[in-house]
C-alpha cells in the first residue's frame, strides 16, 4: 500500500521551530476561529493558535491534496460502474485533515459516511471503505483495531456510540493525563436535528465524557440548507447542554487543527466534551446519485470556491516560501500515484461468495440461519451444470 510518510502533524510539544514563524496579520472574526484567510493570509486569534514546523505545514497541505485526489477517484470509479455510490468530501478537506491530524494515536474516531479524509489521517489504507461503496461488504473492518469505527449511515446514531465509548474510557481510568484517551464523533449539520445527537449531548455533559462532537456544517443535508435545521448557529447548541461550543472556519486547516487539538486535550485531561462546528461547504453533490443543480445555484458554489481549503493553504505555503512549485508538483504526482494505485486495487476487489450472506449474523450461531445456509447451498447445487 502507498500510504507513506504520515507523521502526526498536531502542535508539537518540543518541535524544532521552523525557519521563521509566519507572521500573524489581522485578527480573524471572533465568532469563527480562523488562522488562515481565504486569501492565504495567516491571521491570529485571541484564543487559538498553532505552532508548526514547515514540514508540518507541508504535511497538512499534502494530506489535503491526496485526500482530494483519492476522493475524485471515488467519484470517477462510481461513474465507471465500479462503485454503487460515492459520498464525496470535496470542499471539506481542511475540516477533516485539521481535525484528524489533531488526534492522538490512542484516540477513537466515530465517522459518518463521508470521513475519508479523517480515515487517511489514521494511517489506514484508503481502500478500506471502498468495500462498502462497492457493495461487497457493509464496512466490515475491525473498528477497534483501526481506532476508526465503521461508517455509520443512519444519521446521528454514532454520536451516542461515541459518547458511550468515551464513558468507557473514563471507567477504564484512561483520562486525566497527556496519554489520556479521547473520542471524536463526526456528524453533519442535518444530523444536528436528530434526537440521538441531542441525547448524546445530554449524556456527554452528565458524565463529563471525553468526547468531542465535530459537526461539519457543510451548509446542506442533501437538498436542504442548514436553515431548515436550525435558526441559531449550530455551535451555540452546546452551551445549553453544559459544555462549550466553538465555530471554526472549516476551510482553514490550521484553525481546525488548533481548535480540535484543544478540545481533544481538554477531553483527555478530564475536562469534558466540546462541540465544534466546522463551517464549511460541500462543493460536490451529496453523493453520486444527487443532482445539486436542482436546489442551489452556481453563484453560491462559486462564492465558496473562493474559500477553497487547499488553494488557500497553497497560497500560504508559497507566500511564506515554505514550499515551491517543485514541491507542489511532486505532491500532485504523489497523489496521482496514490489514486491510480487505489483505482487498480478497487477494481480488483473480488465479489463476496454468495454464502457470505449467512456469515456473522450471530457470534454464537443460530439454527435458523444454519438451516437457511444449508438449504441455500442445496438449492444452488441443484442448478450445477444448468445454465442458471
Amino acid at each position, binding site marked *: 500500500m502507498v500510504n507513506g510518510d504520515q507523521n502526526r502533524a498536531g502542535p508539537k510539544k518540543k518541535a524544532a521551530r521552523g525557519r521563521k514563524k509566519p507572521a500573524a496579520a489581522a485578527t480573524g472574526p471572533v465568532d469563527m476561529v480562523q488562522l488562515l484567510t481565504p486569501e492565504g493570509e495567516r491571521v491570529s486569534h485571541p484564543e487559538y493558535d498553532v505552532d508548526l514546523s514547515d514540514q508540518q505545514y507541508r504535511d497538512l497541505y499534502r494530506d489535503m491534496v491526496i485526500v482530494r485526489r483519492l476522493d475524485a477517484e471515488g467519484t470517477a470509479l462510481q461513474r465507471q460502474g465500479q462503485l454503487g455510490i460515492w459520498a464525496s468530501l470535496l470542499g471539506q478537506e481542511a475540516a477533516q485533515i485539521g481535525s484528524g491530524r489533531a488526534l492522538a494515536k490512542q484516540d477513537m474516531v466515530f465517522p459518518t459516511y463521508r470521513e475519508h479524509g479523517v480515515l487517511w489521517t489514521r494511517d489506514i489504507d484508503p481502500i478500506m471503505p471502498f468495500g462498502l461503496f462497492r457493495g461487497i461488504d457493509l464496512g466490515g473492518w475491525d473498528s477497534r483495531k483501526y481506532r476508526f469505527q465503521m461508517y455509520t449511515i443512519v444519521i446521528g446514531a454514532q454520536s451516542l456510540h461515541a459518547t458511550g465509548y468515551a464513558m468507557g474510557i473514563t471507567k477504564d481510568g484512561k483520562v486525566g493525563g497527556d496519554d489520556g484517551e479521547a473520542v471524536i464523533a463526526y456528524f453533519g449539520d442535518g444530523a444536528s*436535528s436528530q434526537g440521538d445527537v441531542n441525547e448524546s449531548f445530554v449524556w456527554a455533559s452528565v458524565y463529563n465524557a471525553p468526547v468531542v462532537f465535530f459537526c461539519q456544517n457543510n451548509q446542506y443535508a442533501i437538498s436542504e440548507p442548514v436553515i431548515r435545521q436550525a435558526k441559531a448557529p449550530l455551535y451555540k447548541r452546546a452551551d445549553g447542554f453544559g459544555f462549550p461550543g466553538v465555530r471554526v472556519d472549516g476551510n482553514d486547516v490550521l484553525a481546525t487543527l488548533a481548535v480540535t487539538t484543544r478540545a481533544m486535550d481538554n477531553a483527555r485531561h478530564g475536562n469534558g466534551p466540546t462541540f465544534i462546528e466546522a463551517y464549511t461547504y460541500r462543493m460536490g453533490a451529496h453523493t453520486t446519485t444527487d443532482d445539486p443543480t436542482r*436546489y442551489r445555484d452556481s453563484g453560491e458554489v462559486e462564492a465558496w470556491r473562493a474559500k477553497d481549503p487547499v488553494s488557500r493553504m497553497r497560497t500560504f505555503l508559497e507566500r511564506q516560501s515554505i514550499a515551491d512549485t517543485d514541491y507542489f508538483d511532486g505532491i500532485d504526482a504523489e497523489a496521482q500515484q496514490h489514486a491510480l494505485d487505489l483505482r487498480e486495487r478497487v477494481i480488483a476487489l473480488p465479489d463476496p461468495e454468495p454464502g457470505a450472506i449467512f456469515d456473522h449474523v450471530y457470534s454464537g450461531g443460530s439454527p435458523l440461519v444454519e438451516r437457511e445456509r444449508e438449504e441455500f447451498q442445496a438449492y444452488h447445487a441443484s442448478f450445477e451444470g444448468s445454465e442458471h
Partner: protein
Amino acid sequence: MSQTLRIGGAVGAGLRRAMEDDPKVILMGEDVGKLGGVFRVTDGLQKDFGEDRVIDTPLAESGILGTAIGLAIRGWRPVCEIQFNGFVYPAFDQIVCQLAKMHYRSQGTVPLPIVVRIPCGGGIGAVEHHSESPEAYFAHTAGLKVVSCSNSHDAYWMIQQAIASDDPVIFFEPLRRYQEKGEVDTSGDLSQAYPLFSTKVEREGDDATVVAWGSMVKVAHDAATAAAEEGRSLEVVNLRTLSPLDMEPVYASVRKTGRMVVVHEAPSNVGIGAEIAARVTQDCFYSLESPVLRVTGYDTPYPAARLEEEYLPDLDRVLDAVDRTFGY
C-alpha cells in the same frame, strides 16, 4: 381516461390529485420540496402548492411523525415521506405508541388521518438501510393499516385512498419498480376505485397459488408465466393490504388450488408470510394438499449489495417452492 405512468410518477400524480381535492392535505419529509424527493416522487409539488403544503423538514424522523400527529389533531392531513425504509425506526415510538393508539385512546374522538410513505425493498444496489422491508413491524401493530402498491394504477389510486382514510396508513412503495411504466385509468373517483383494503387475484390458475405484494408481485407473475410454459397453472394473488389482511380471496384461491407459496422480501421469521400460513392452515385445513411454503429474504440483516440478487426471492426460487408444494 388512461395514462402511461411510471410507478413513482403515479404516486406523484395521486398525491397531486389528493392535494387538489383537499386543501388540508400536506406533504412533509426530508428533501420532498425543492428536490422533489430523492426519487422525484414529489417533483413539482412544492412549486405548485407552496412551501406551506410541501414541507422540507428537519432531518429527524421522530420529529416528522410527531409533528404530523399534532398537525392531524389540528385538522390537517399529513402525508409523511420516510426517505428510505431503514430510516423509519427513529419514528417507531411515535408510530407505535401515538399514531397507532390515539384513536383507541380517545374512544374514537381523535382520528389521525396520516399516511406514512415508505419506499420499500431492495434490488437497487444500495448501501445498508436502503433496501429493507419493515412491513411486519407495522402489521403486528394494532391501530395501523398497512398497504403496499405494486403497479402504476394501484399506486395512483391507493395513495389517494390512503390519504382519504381516517385511519393512519403505512404506505409501502416498491422502490426498485419506481421506474416501471404502466397504464393508469384516471377516470372516475375514489369511490369507484378498487377498494384499498382489498386483496386482488391478478391471474387465475388452478394448480397452486402464489401470494405476493409490492416488488414481488412482478416476480410472482413472471413465475406464473414461466410455469405456464411448463404446463403448470399458477394463480397470482396481489395482497395489496397487509393489515388488515383481506383473507377471503386468499382462502378462496387455496381452496381451489390446494397449494400456496407466499413470497416476500423481508426475513421469514415472524413475517407476514407466517401469518398467512397460520391463517390459511387454520381456515382451510382440509383444502391444503401441502403446507403453505414461504419464499423470503433470509433471516439475516440485509446483505451487501453484491449479494442481494442471491438474497431476494426470484422467479427460480418461487418455482422451486411451487415444485416443493407438489412434493407433499
